[in-house]
């Protein structure tokens, strides 16, 4: 992964910071760590980390334990690299030639520049996979953390997610997003059903099967409640689907559209576009669907709200100026200000959960491209250039963005880093729309 590409963001202060991490007195607060990453210029402060081959202990049950251990190692490497907190160091061919048949040792890892080593042992008891995670500070030659994870047999994914989130937490103090998922619409003919998959595209399942249009899914901070607009009773109304109980509840079925919902960070409010007063306006509703207040009064169309992380403000689009631009309002409906001044069609904003950036899609020469800007509307950066790129949404940690692109023909969900690097396709459903990146329900237990 090449993250040093753009000019801004992420300094390389980490080695120092790291030393501080393990001397109790200087242990930095979580927010400090993040502040260092995001607020200063330079490249991403990645820790150089390596994942060793896991020992296999215990009896073999299925016989494919060595393959599963290798798969786990590979998935942990992938997860660590994706998190952006790490530069995953692997043995290059010249070193391998030097080593020959013997096992890698500390000197080899130091030679490769690794600062930390993830190792441990793996075994199967026929019902569960067990992984004993071991994190070693290579420079000090000292194991700094060990723990055991279990997951149902064949669930190497889960095991790797648990391990990656723990490693992130131990070495950076941050909360990983390995269990986060992406919920989106999949079109087939005249219908759109909701689907959800892991951040890497794995474990895709469909959430609806009502043969109608199911649009604009979003979720609360627990990742448990998915809100969306559905035509399954005829009118485009707002519904809530609980992913654990699978209970479906109508939330707002007013005259006209009940469209493009956003849920406040504390889960108490819904920002929603309604046409009850004939014109599309932005409203604030309780999470049960009662209107608290109307936030806009224009002749134009308001659309696509997204809450600020403190829940006090909402970014949305409006065409009241004659073209579609982004605006911010507080939840009282006051202090409204315009954020975008470039182009003539800027819509579908998503406010970073870290609070510093807003990503949105802007149409230029008939195609949409994805941008970020600061919350004051400055530092406008275009992140995509090939094909149509739409519906950006920040990951729960604010370090990634998911979006839809048709760059390879079909509309698929892609992910990228917040600076536009590392753009990757994650789905193969052919017709994906409106992705929303939701926190994982099955957080590490």
């Amino acid at each position, binding site marked *: 992964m090449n993250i040093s590409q753009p000019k801004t963001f992420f300094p390389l202060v980490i080695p120092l910071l790291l030393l501080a991490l393990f001397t109790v007195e200087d242990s930095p607060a979580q927010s400090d760590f993040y502040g260092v990453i995001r607020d200063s210029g330079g490249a991403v402060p990645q820790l150089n980390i390596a994942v060793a081959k896991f020992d296999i202990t215990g009896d073999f049950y299925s016989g494919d334990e060595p393959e599963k251990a290798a798969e786990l190692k590979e998935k942990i490497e992938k997860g660590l690299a994706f998190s952006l907190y790490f530069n995953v160091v692997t043995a290059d061919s010249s070193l391998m030639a030097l080593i020959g048949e013997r096992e890698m040792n500390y000197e080899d890892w130091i030679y490769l520049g690794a600062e930390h080593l993830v190792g441990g042992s793996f075994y199967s008891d026929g019902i569960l996979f067990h992984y004993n995670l071991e994190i070693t500070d290579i420079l000090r030659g000292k194991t700094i953390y060990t723990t055991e994870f279990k997951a149902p047999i064949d669930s190497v994914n889960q095991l790797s997610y648990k391990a990656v989130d723990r490693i992130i937490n131990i070495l950076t103090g941050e909360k990983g997003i390995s269990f986060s998922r992406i919920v989106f619409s999949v079109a087939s003919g005249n219908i759109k059903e909701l689907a959800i998959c892991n951040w890497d595209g794995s474990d895709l399942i469909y959430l609806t099967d009502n043969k109608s249009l199911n*649009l604009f899914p979003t979720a609360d901070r627990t990742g448990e409640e998915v809100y969306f607009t559905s035509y399954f009773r005829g009118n485009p109304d707002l519904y809530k689907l609980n992913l654990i109980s699978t209970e479906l509840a109508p939330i707002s079925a007013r005259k006209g559209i009940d469209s493009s919902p956003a849920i406040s960070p504390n889960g108490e409010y819904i920002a929603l576009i309604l046409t009850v007063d004939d014109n599309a306006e932005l409203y604030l509703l309780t999470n049960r669907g009662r209107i608290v207040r109307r936030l806009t009064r224009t002749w134009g169309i308001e659309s696509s709200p997204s809450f600020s992380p403190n829940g006090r403000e909402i970014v949305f689009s409006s065409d009241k100026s004659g073209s579609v631009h982004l605006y911010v309002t507080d939840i009282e409906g006051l202090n409204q200000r315009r954020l975008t001044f470039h182009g003539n069609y800027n*819509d579908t904003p998503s406010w970073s959960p870290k609070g510093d950036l807003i990503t949105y899609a802007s149409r230029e020469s008939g195609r949409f491209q994805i941008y970020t800007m600061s919350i004051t509307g400055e530092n406008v950066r275009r992140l995509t250039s090939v094909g149509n790129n739409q519906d950006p949404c920040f990951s729960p940690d604010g370090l990634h963005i998911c979006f839809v692109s048709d760059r390879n023909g079909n509309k698929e969900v892609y992910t990228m880093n917040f600076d536009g690097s590392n753009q990757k396709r994650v789905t193969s459903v052919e017709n994906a729309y409106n992705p929303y990146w939701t926190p994982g329900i099955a957080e590490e237990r």
Partner: protein
Amino acid sequence: MRAFKLTIIFVIIGVLSFGAICGGKKEPTLTPPKPVEEPEEEVEIETPPAEEIAKFEVEEEPEPLEFPNIHFDFNKYNLKPEARAVLREMADSLRSRPDTMLRIEGHCDERGTEQYNLALGEKRALEAKKFLVSAGIDSDRIDIISYGEERPIDPGHNEEAWAKNRRDEFIFIE
């Protein structure tokens, strides 16, 4: 505990049915059924001769109303002169057929965002409804719905297709 609850339920059922029986016994004596409404019922039930039914159907079966889609300019919802002409004619038909209901579907081309277009389609449908209401059609007879850009009639990605897709469709319900 459960047995206790069941007992209570049975007791309640018993009391209720006792009441019902008592009520059933008393009612005839207190309020004898009124024979006044009987003739009316008979009139309603009375069926005309078979040939009259056939005649009625042949004569009165209305042609289902059909009107062409009206179209809009890119990113606009105002009614063009051609659209107004269609709607004027539609208002005349609806006036002469007071039992016909109308559903107006607003649609957009694919070029905006789905979120924005859902609102734009609503405005396009509403604009036609407003016109009909101002021409004297009861607003309760007209239902509107937006499909945004979800239901194109031409799947093409060119101006010809887009022009067809920016439309109101009219569905008449007798």
